[in-house]
């Protein structure tokens, strides 16, 4: 069995941090949100989502808490920690630099 292919290395982490920066969410909602905001361009398989969330939790970027949802079921809500926010800022900055560099390369005129 091989793991489902990831997005560009490291970008899934960035996206998850960003979504959780807006509000605490449970796993299913995170997946839905990701699909909505990216106009279904970004689809993260559940097989990648949960291990990634658990990894971020263990790293201390996000924290998890069991809460009861509006439907009365217990769900695991993830929220950004303070360190996670700083991390998000760094990663965002990093991503901007990288993507603008890539954009500049792609804008080169062919002779």
């Amino acid at each position, binding site marked *: *069995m091989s*793991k*489902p292919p990831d997005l560009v290395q490291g970008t899934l982490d960035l996206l998850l941090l960003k979504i959780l920066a807006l509000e605490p969410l*449970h*796993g*299913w*909602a995170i997946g839905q949100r990701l699909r909505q905001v990216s106009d279904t361009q970004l689809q993260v*398989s*559940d*097989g*990648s989502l*949960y*291990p990634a969330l*658990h*990894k971020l*939790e*263990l*790293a*201390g*970027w996000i*924290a*998890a808490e*069991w809460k009861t949802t509006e*439907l009365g*079921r*217990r*769900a*695991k809500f993830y929220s950004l*920690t*303070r*360190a*996670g926010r700083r*991390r998000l800022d760094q990663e965002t900055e990093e991503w901007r630099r990288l993507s603008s560099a890539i954009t500049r390369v792609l804008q080169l005129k062919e002779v």
Partner: protein
Amino acid sequence: MSWRWIHALTAHLRAIVRPARAERDLDDEMSFHIAMQTRMNSEAGMSEAEANRKARIAFGGLEPIKEHSRDVRPLRWARDLLQDLRYAQRSLRRAPGFTAVAIVTLALGIGANTALFSVVSSVLLRPLAFPEPDRLVRVWAFIPSANVRRPPALPDYRELRDRNRTFDELGAYASGSYSATGTDRPEFLPSVQVTASIWSVLKVTPLHGQLFTDAAQQWGNHRVVVLSHELWQRRFGGDPRAIGRVVELDGQPFTVVAVMPRSFVFGAPSTQVWTPMAFAPGDAADSRNTYFIELLGRLQQGITLPQSYADLAIIAEDLDQRFSKSGVGIALEDWQESMVGPIRPTLLLLLGAVGLVLLIACANVANLLLARTTTREQELTVRATLGAGRGRLARQLLTEHLVLASLGAAAALPLAYALVRAIPLLGPIGLPRLGEIAVDSRVAGFAALLALATGVAFGVWPARHAGRVSVVGSLKQTARSVVGGRARARRVLVTAEIALSLVLVVGAALLIVSLQRVLRVDPGFEPDHLLTARLNLPRAQFVDGERTRRFLNQVTADVAALPGIRAAGITTTLPLGDGEWGRMLTIDGRPAPTSFAQVPMIRYRLVTLDYFRAMGAAVRRGRAFTTDDAAGAPLVTIVNETMARRFWPDDDPIGQQISFFPPESLLPNSTTRFPRHTIIGVIADLRQSGLERDPEAEAFVPFAQSGNQSGSVHFLAARTTGDPLAAVAVIESTVHRIDRNVPVANVRSMESRLSDSVAQRRVVMLMVGGFAVLAVVIAVVGIYGVMAYMVGLRRTELGVRAAMGATAAQLVRIVITEGMQMTLAGIAIGLVLAGALSRLLVAQLFQIEAIDPLLYATATTLIVGVAGLACSVPVYRAVRINPATVLRGE
């Protein structure tokens, strides 16, 4: 410390401390996800069941995703290990027969290896049990022209000790023996005479009392004795007040000054007493022409062997210039190396042989595992479907194999312990440091390492196969096609087993033939019905040749007169005993050598008149000694065939005049004329130092004509009419009646001495032979297993063939071909390997070449034979296949 670490830490702790809770959380989270998805699906208008099904499909495999999540959790490996261990335990229990066979095979392999390794570890690797043992060095005189080392002379030792600049201390010692007298029955005590400096060389302290000092080496002050722990227990019951008491040695009173600890071994392990090295003024032992002492020194801190050699070589050269002028130099060797160096090749050889057995055992267990992996296909496939990765499956199997190997090693340790305890029972095999051999932590570590190595060795192949389990593949394919690859692997393993077994069988056969040929060597005497004993004549009592002769004549006369004794003789050197005497040889009428180094050396023995008759040695030419060869008569001698051949290859030695001294021309300032002996006979070569050693030139002189020479070591040889051991008691009492201070020691039949002289060879042969038998048995089990398995697989095919009219002979041929392919391939590889490896045996071989075509052919036939036997049961089954049953069953 930022908040992040606190979050991370609590998350880790939760996962580690409450693993069950973590599992439940994971379940809850996943089922919540599915519930949400189901709800969304049903809101989109699906039926309840359909919504749930779609949600599950969208989610993908639940278990694999959980596995990935578990992967990121801390201590994943530890939890896996625990889980794997549980699986291993469960699956080994489910197959008790397989588990038992595998563990027994491994226990035998690892046990034998561990036992042999404890010998290698204790004898070769562990430093000697003295402080800073790497600084202890043996020193010899060295004769470059003959490339031999010899003991230095006592006066030379003193100069070496006083003038060297590289030793903290240099000591001398010599083995000997005493008769403990003054009691009812004289006792033979092996002893070592030591200079007081030996104590500082060894840096030892006694258990009780004080070790003697240099002052005890003054003749007159020398009657002090250091007791072994054993003798102290035996004679004084372990009483510390033994210090200061007097024991009688050789009829002289010696004061006990010290008792050594139980662990102290210096000299032969049987040594009971240590006395000062002291000689009366004018004693011939203390001269530059007498060589009997051994030197042991402690190097100064930081001094190397070559530095010390350079230092001593200058002194040795000076000594040679001043005294012998024959180019005698010096030789140094690390003490431990000088002790264990000779046995090293033999031990390593055995370790190699037993290593092959372990390889075969591993191959066999791998074989069993492959067979089992086939039957476990289903289980592994299920595990893979549930999300176990390829590596994970392989790891689980490897854990199982390591558990198997560890169980094997655990069973091997008591086996190794028992084997090591049994080593002293092997007889006098000449193994140094015998008392130190033990199963210690290093040995246990070795066993653990072996377990790991074997677990990996036999486990990796099957584990790799398991790693290739393809979910789709094994669902689609029938069992038989999957099995094809395994069958090939199993055939390769069996081929390897056959090859390695053949190597061991060839090695064992070479050793067996060598031993047979050694035992067929004519010793030059008749060893049956021959009783031998050692008579130690106390020096203080037997001060001159006359007293010694009187005693010896009395003993031979009285013993020969006993009923059941046909003849009795006494000698100074018994074959396979000890007490070597070397003398120079000068032949009249030949040009005299110009230096001492060129004077030939021969072996010299004193004998009573009847000695040759008692030994049953044949006089080849001339005559034996008679009563006419008495004290005043012309001096005579009998030489052995080797001496006759070496010095008189073309003429008759009978009637030649020889002396056992250097030519007078080499001693310019002396007017002495040394006595001449006339050669009156040539005797058959007696194998003095073992059946395998070529005889040396020897001359025999009657005690009656030996003048004033006397030594303390003598051997009695008595030819009996019946069982020689039946005569022991009467001979002992006869000697005791003549002189109550002479112990009759080491009373043995000559046959048992002969048997002891080949003990090491016999043990090496038995061990390699045992390994070979073990290897063949394991290989036969392997062949049988694979053949039975093949026949099982080809049941249908064989049944169809039978139904189509194939005869029994044709079916037999089909099956046999299969088995013989493996056997022949194994034999081809094995013969090449044996040809290469048997070269390592050369030192152990006697009168046979490492590559002996007949022997290789015999070994090959044996292997083919047992392989055929192993095939016979599967072949029988193949012939008995009932076509009707097979066709109905499929």
